[in-house]
């Protein structure tokens, strides 16, 4: 961001609101009412973060069950029916329950504080969009216990396989509808807040990158969540109301589902990574003690990625057998995405170049993000080449690729952001030693888990298999060991963060990071219940 200096700040000292028309901020509500009826962006942000971490643990447990079965060839623990349910629910829970809501949590906490707004624009809608999520998560979880179990059609819910599932599928469809509605409301809130509630002087091109990336993400969400809703509604009517959208015998086409799904699904990928770019773009300059390199080009690159994300969806479908011109077009368009993504990586490296760097945990996770996410970017480029994609499509190579961008990308950035802002949230510094352990354990075990999957995929090991040829055993065992290591390492994160919440650890200053910039560091730590009741002046 370019030169944000604050002229005058009144961080909720009480002078501002004696003539206010609204009186809800006179007392902080207490007990369960504070949370159920929450309208404060910080409380709602906290709830989002807690919810998404619980979902991360649930999805992670499912992943560990998968890895347990895959430790050896043969079926030892779970029959394939159940294994497929685990695969499917792992994907749905991680995407819609863990990664997406956690970014909304960050948006709730940080966007108003970064732009100098008093709260999110629509406080009650904010409450509603959060409380839809536990309902949806409950439906997903109980779907394991209905006849036939949870949906086992893969997180993509491809028709016509999804037409064969039991009532667990209907529960999943309704749950995804709810989560979609929640995301759309969250997105509207972000857009209105960012566009209307910036403090005087906070022009768009002075906004922190995190606000920019979230603004663009919010537009993506509004554009594509209804498309997903359409796709799964068509599955629902095919299942129960005699329509035949995806049934060739009734004049439908199973591939239509994939087109509609991936028209949502590809922008979804960027929905899960653009806010991560924003977090990293805040942290790298802070710990390099140097301004973000190429702020404007970062904004343009983010926009370019968002626009391109709408015109590349069928690269997920190269093996469905599309015409040669279609394959060529989607191959070229997909390769183009690597250019703005590359610009971002170059900008981060240039930001670090000739800075004055220190490596506290947020910086470690950010550097880890850049390093490992870029590997996922390269495998993405390799996958964009249609002939290679046809060879490795639906193999573990793809599994490796998207875990490199979603775990080493989104999740690492989330950890970086959590360590960076947890002093602001709780008023306590986290334990640096424990956090560094968390980083190194996570980084090493992540690579042990997912790097061997590239080899498996290249050798032709298909994904979503409960059992495999014995030649694949070594790499599967590495992956399983790594996965348990990775999973257990996350308990370290939980412990470290909970310590802060329980008021243990060093008291944090208003601005605990020497090189950090932005309005959020001008309010005390922990941030008071209400901040910026009178907007600060940004020069």
């Amino acid at each position, binding site marked *: 961001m370019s030169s944000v200096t604050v002229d005058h700040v009144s961080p909720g000292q009480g002078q501002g609101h004696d003539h206010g028309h609204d009186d809800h901020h006179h007392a902080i509500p207490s007990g369960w009412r504070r949370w159920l009826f929450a309208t404060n962006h910080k409380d709602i942000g906290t709830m989002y973060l807690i919810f998404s971490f619980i979902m991360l643990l649930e999805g992670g447990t499912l992943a560990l069950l998968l890895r347990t079965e895959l430790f050896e060839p043969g079926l030892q623990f779970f029959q394939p029916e159940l294994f497929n349910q685990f695969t499917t629910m792992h994907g749905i829970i991680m995407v819609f329950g863990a990664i997406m809501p956690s970014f909304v949590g960050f948006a709730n906490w940080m966007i108003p504080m970064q732009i100098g707004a008093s709260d999110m624009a629509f406080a009650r809608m904010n409450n509603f969009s959060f409380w839809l999520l536990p309902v949806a998560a409950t439906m997903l979880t109980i779907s394991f216990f209905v006849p036939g*179990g949870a949906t086992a059609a893969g997180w993509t819910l491809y028709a016509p396989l999804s037409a064969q599932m039991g009532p667990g599928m209907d529960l999943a469809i309704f749950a995804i509808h709810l989560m979609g509605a929640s995301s759309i409301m969250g997105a509207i809130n972000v857009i209105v807040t960012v566009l209307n509630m910036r403090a005087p002087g906070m022009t768009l091109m002075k906004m922190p990158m995190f606000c920019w990336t979230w603004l663009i993400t919010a537009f993506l969400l509004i554009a594509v969540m209804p498309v997903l809703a359409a796709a799964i509604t068509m599955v629902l009517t095919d299942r129960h109301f005699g329509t035949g959208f995806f049934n060739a015998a009734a004049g439908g086409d199973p591939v239509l589902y994939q087109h509609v799904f991936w028209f949502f699904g590809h922008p979804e990928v960027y929905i899960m990574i653009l806010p991560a770019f924003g977090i990293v773009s805040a942290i790298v300059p802070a710990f390099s003690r140097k301004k973000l390199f190429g*702020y404007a080009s970062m904004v343009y690159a983010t926009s370019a990625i968002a626009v391109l994300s709408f015109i590349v969806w069928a690269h997920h479908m190269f093996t469905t*057998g599309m015409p040669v011109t279609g394959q060529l077009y989607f191959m070229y368009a997909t390769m183009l995405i690597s250019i703005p993504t590359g610009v971002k990586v170059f900008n981060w490296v240039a930001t670090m*170049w000739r800075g004055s760097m220190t490596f506290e945990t947020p910086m470690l996770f950010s550097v880890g993000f850049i390093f490992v996410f*870029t590997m996922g970017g390269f495998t993405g480029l390799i996958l964009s080449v249609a002939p290679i994609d046809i060879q490795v499509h639906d193999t573990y190579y793809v599994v490796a690729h998207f875990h490199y961008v979603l775990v080493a990308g989104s999740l690492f950035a989330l950890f970086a952001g959590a360590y960076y802002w947890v002093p602001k949230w709780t008023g306590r510094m986290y334990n640096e030693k424990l956090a560094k352990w968390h980083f190194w354990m996570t980084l090493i075990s992540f690579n042990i888990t997912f790097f061997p999957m590239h080899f498996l995929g290249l050798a032709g090991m298909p994904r979503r298999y409960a059992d495999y*040829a014995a030649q694949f055993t*070594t790499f599967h065992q590495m992956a399983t*060991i790594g996965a348990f290591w990775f999973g257990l390492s996350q308990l370290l994160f939980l412990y470290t963060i909970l310590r802060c919440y329980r008021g243990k650890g060093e008291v944090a200053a208003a601005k605990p990071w020497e090189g950090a910039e932005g309005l959020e560091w001008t309010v005390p730590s922990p941030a008071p219940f209400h901040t910026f009741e009178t907007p600060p002046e940004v020069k």
Partner: protein
Amino acid sequence: MKKWWRGILGACVLLFSCAVGAQVRDMPGGPKVDQLNLHEGVTQIAQEIAWLHWMLLIICGVIFLGVFGVMFYSIWAHRKSRGHQASTFHEHLGVEIAWTVIPFIIVIAMALPATKTVVAMKDTSSADLTVKATGYQWKWGYEYIDGPAAGYKFLATLSTPRAQIDGREPKGEFYLMETDYHLVVPVDKKVRVVVTAGDVIHSWMVPDFGVKQDAIPGFLRDAWFRAQKPGIYRGQCAELCGKDHAFMPIVVEVLPQDEYDAWAQEQKKKMAANADDPSKEWTKEELVARGEKVYAANCVACHQANGKGVPGSFPALDGDPTVMGPKDAQLETVLKGRPGTAMAAFAGQLNDVEVAAVITYTRHAWSNAGKGEDPVVQPKDSVAKR
């Protein structure tokens, strides 16, 4: 701390060596032990793909080293603990244009050779032999459309015994990648595979050929290969298709032309000899014996060998009212399937003798024991119902 580290490392190494020590060898036509890269390939397309992959890997590797060389140098040199003072630059138009334009040129250089391969892969014209592959839950059906074996069709199911999967027997050399019948094709001929499916989407993949084509129910798609060497090549279903997704492999046997011709003649003869005559009246014993085989190949995955099904997912046939009731309803179910459930229409997969046999079998098996109505169903009943 150091010792603890070594303990973990040692345990890992021990575990791996145990697993590898279990005398697993490279599978001919399938994966090698701990294979690191793509299959070498026995078609020009597969070899081109392997080449493209190497090219991209090298380009990406060079960029990777360049970018992260700079980053790690910076991390080493420009740190506060070394007393480095931060510069203030934060923009440079020239550099920013360069790192947009140069990657663009690199991407074009990658796209050009890939384009050539895409065009070659999609050209399924003027094939020497056409075979149709149909994915079913959970087996592949093959039919020779032309060539000396035209009209020959068969189902290929996994031949790995269940005992190996459940760990009651040691795993065989071709564990999970073997079928009872192979798709047989001649060497050095352009073989076009027309791919479709009977229920849900499957995907026909043989890595050594560089072929992976989704099988879409109700639609025909095609792919082609020209194998350069005789041999047996193995692949697996590559699109999630339900519970036995991992258990429907693809095995293709490439023969020299003369052996292929001889094989085709043999199949023709067998076809003539085995033709089932649906107008013949079969005895109960014949039908039950035949039906047991049909059941084992087509029904057992869902309804289970004991006829109890899988509660909540697949219904039991043992004691089922349709199986115990008049024959018409069961004929209807077997021939046309039950829309909206996993029960597929078998009219296209089973002939009338097989339909009659499997229905008669279910009416006599388990506790059903022929106690229901219409215990024996004749092939002519199936003909009438079609």
